[in-house]
């Protein structure tokens, strides 16, 4: 499968709640450990995915979306891990008074993700957000 470039896929769906973010981190630890990542790179993936899920959880709380879920889809090839984190936690609309709060964990979270993976894009989707991150192995 991996040989001809077709990625292997691991997909996880969790409630968009604080107590389940750790499950996503553990699953990604398992995925990343099976790739050609260094110890530090595995940590980077675990932390980046944890931050992305945490942001989803925080928006679900703000938007009072109690029943929302997060899907974490890992697409694995020999030299590249792509993780899609998709939530239905509502739109990420900052109320004006809250902008520019530097110590807002979400800004720190976004900063961490940018520093830890090679590529990241954030796209609003119908009723939620899609974060895509890419980490290259063997670098």
């Amino acid at each position, binding site marked *: 499968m991996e040989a001809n470039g077709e990625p292997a896929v691991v997909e996880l769906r969790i409630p968009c709640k*604080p107590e389940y973010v750790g499950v996503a981190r553990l699953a990604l630890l398992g995925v990343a450990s099976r790739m050609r990542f260094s110890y530090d790179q595995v940590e980077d993936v675990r932390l980046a995915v944890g931050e992305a899920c945490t942001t989803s959880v925080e928006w679900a709380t703000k938007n009072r979306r109690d029943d929302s879920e997060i899907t974490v889809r890992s697409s694995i090839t020999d030299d590249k891990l792509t993780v899609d984190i998709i939530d239905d936690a509502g739109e990420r609309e900052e109320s004006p008074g809250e902008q520019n709060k530097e110590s807002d964990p979400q800004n720190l979270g976004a900063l961490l993700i940018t520093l830890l993976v090679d590529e990241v894009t954030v796209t609003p989707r119908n009723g939620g957000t899609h974060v895509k991150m890419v980490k290259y192995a063997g670098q």
Partner: protein
Amino acid sequence: MNFKIDTYNMDSGVPVITLDGEVDVYTAPQLKQQMVSLLESGTTHMVIDLTNVEYFDSTALGVLIGGLKRIRERDGNLSLICPSPRIRRVFEITGLDKIFDIYDNAEEARSGIAALR
């Protein structure tokens, strides 16, 4: 659940919050609560011991930043004990290692705080 929090006082009376396990969006509120109750009791110096922490996310960093801000308003300080390179890395890549006093062990934290006072 893989998280524990405890508080003890150094001989000098400075309170030390020790954390164990994963400090994240689920468990960081317990750290915040503990810091708030120490601040309400009038503490001006505080130490957070991260020696046994194995995961520390942005939510936990946010709690430390908020606590540092409040304790500095009363001319106090917040020190960290963080020997683990993995956890220290989270502070380094965010630049937060420059705003916190980070020590390798309780002994160094003790002398560091004594020198400040």
